[in-house]
């Protein structure tokens, strides 16, 4: 049976509570075990820390989808000032699975885009669980055009199971909308930075990831298709998703090794939601540095570097 939820933290919390009970009980009975308890506590924290340094790819997949994991809007609100959301694709509708707008970072106005999952069921239903329709990608197309016109750097946040597979999405040209965004991002004459904060699922995630720099949070994942889908398609068995996750090489660390990811932002022990502020602060530092580096390049250098990076992807024999 495949594990569907990342429950280590709950179990650990349980253990801690039992431990506190034991402490209290021993105190009430005049057992002086202060030193022993302290040692034990340190050891427990140690084991927990080690656990988080050695999560399996599947555990990372689960952690990247954790219901308490910060959503893109949390990052936008924490990292930027003067955020104003802009809506619609001017063509069909406003896709709430993708948010976009303008914000200020270190005094610089930016265009900010990201997949938007919900924090609860209602919000998730409204945002279609962060799975965009073509109008979402066309909103991206519109807003990056705007960024270019007003010379604003573009920051994108990636957190989606994938582009939505449905009747309307196909009728309105999901493939066309994604392809177009993939073609336009490399041509932008402003710096672009993409950050995978949670789940990077397939083409719908890729559409926001073509950038000068690709950063990943240490427990986020990026995959050609979900491990479940790959497992059921290649092995005709969705039950082997856990095994598939390790073969697909979906973790930030694997993708850094493959040269796909530029930088990993370490998450606190327990994952991004355990200490959001600490995580967001280190992300902020990294953004500052990366943006500064990219802004120091002239337009030709920027486009050349970016193109060389994209053009060079792939491994083969010749």
């Amino acid at each position, binding site marked *: 049976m495949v594990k569907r939820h990342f429950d280590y933290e709950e179990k650990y919390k349980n253990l801690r509570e039992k431990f506190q009970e034991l402490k209290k009980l021993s105190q009430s009975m005049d057992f002086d075990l202060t030193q022993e308890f302290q040692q034990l506590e340190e050891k427990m924290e140690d084991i927990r820390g080690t656990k988080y340094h050695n999560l399996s790819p599947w555990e990372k997949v689960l952690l990247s989808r954790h219901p308490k994991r910060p959503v893109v809007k949390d990052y936008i609100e924490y990292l930027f000032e003067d955020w104003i959301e802009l809506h619609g694709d001017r063509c069909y509708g406003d896709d709430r699975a993708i948010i976009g707008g303008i914000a200020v970072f270190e005094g610089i106005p930016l265009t900010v885009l990201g997949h938007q999952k919900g924090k609860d069921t209602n919000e998730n239903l409204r945002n279609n669980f962060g799975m965009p329709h073509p109008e979402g990608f066309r909103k991206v197309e519109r807003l990056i055009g705007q960024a270019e016109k007003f010379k604003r750097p573009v920051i994108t946040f990636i957190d989606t199971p994938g582009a*939505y*597979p449905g009747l309307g999405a196909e009728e309105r040209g*999901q*493939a066309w909308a*994604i392809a177009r965004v993939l073609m336009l991002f490399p041509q932008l004459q402003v710096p672009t930075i993409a950050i995978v904060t949670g789940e990077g699922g397939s*083409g719908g995630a890729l559409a926001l990831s073509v950038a000068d720099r690709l950063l990943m949070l240490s427990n986020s994942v990026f*995959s*050609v298709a979900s491990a479940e889908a790959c497992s059921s*398609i290649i092995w005709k068995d969705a039950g082997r998703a856990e095994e598939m996750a390790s073969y*697909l090489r979906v973790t930030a660390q694997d993708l850094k090794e493959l040269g796909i990811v530029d930088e990993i932002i370490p998450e606190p022990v327990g994952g991004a939601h355990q200490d959001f502020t600490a995580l967001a602060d280190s992300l902020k530092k990294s953004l500052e540095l990366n943006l500064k580096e990219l802004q120091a390049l002239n337009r030709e250098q920027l486009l050349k570097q970016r193109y060389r990076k994209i053009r060079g992807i792939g491994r083969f024999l010749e």
Partner: protein
Amino acid sequence: MLKSTFGKQKLIPIPGSGRGPVDKTLPDEPGLKCPSCSRRLKEKEVKEQHKLCPHCGYHFPLNVWERVEIMTDPDSFREFGAGLRSFNILDFPGYDEKLAQAIDETGLSEAFITGEATIGGYPCVLGILDARFMMGSMGSVVGEKVSRAVERAMEFNLPLIICTASGGARMQEGMLSLLQMAKTAAVLGRFHQAGLLYISIITNPTTGGVSASFASLADIILAEPGALIGFAGPRVIKQTISETLPADFQKAEFMLGHGMLDGIVERGQLKKTLELLLRLHGGVKHG
């Protein structure tokens, strides 16, 4: 990406008349059955009709060499890039065997062939995906060959024509395959900036990473009648939503109706149509 789409329509193998290696999967039986109208057909009559069913017009799948034959001037096709080969980058279980089997069965080195050819005397760069080779899936080599074909066309100021048939990204190469979508799209961005003509011909089936990258980034997008075209495969969509789907859902005719294609061209008309389009875009005849 969505291999499942291939399960829908049974690909009835029929002996190839192409100049390429003989397809070993072809049975010796003299007759074949049209998967659309179920009539028994004679091989010869099907072959003479560009592999169409003479009764209902069903388009039998073509291998790359048969496609070269119906689309280009005789003996004009000169392949390039045949030396590129895939390897098991991620040590993915079974990938080596799958590759070896595909090479053995198709006689191709990969799912995509590229070359220069003339069509009605007009030179062009031509790329063709073969669905027999691991569902025409795009891994590093297919992405690289697409990119090189685009660059070749830019280098020699030639129009580019690509025929697709693909289940999408090649999962066995993980993210390296997904990123081929970005790579081919980026290279095509430069191609369009250079003011050159790109014609995409979408054949059955084209879904996933190929439809959401180079197949839909052409100036002119044509499709074969009845071809399945979409982002997600129909089975995934049926699993996801409970609505009933239209009978022609994701067929070329459906996509034309929704404004995604410039036209549907029957196989017998394809070469003529391409000739006209090349002429209309200032094609200069060879010789």
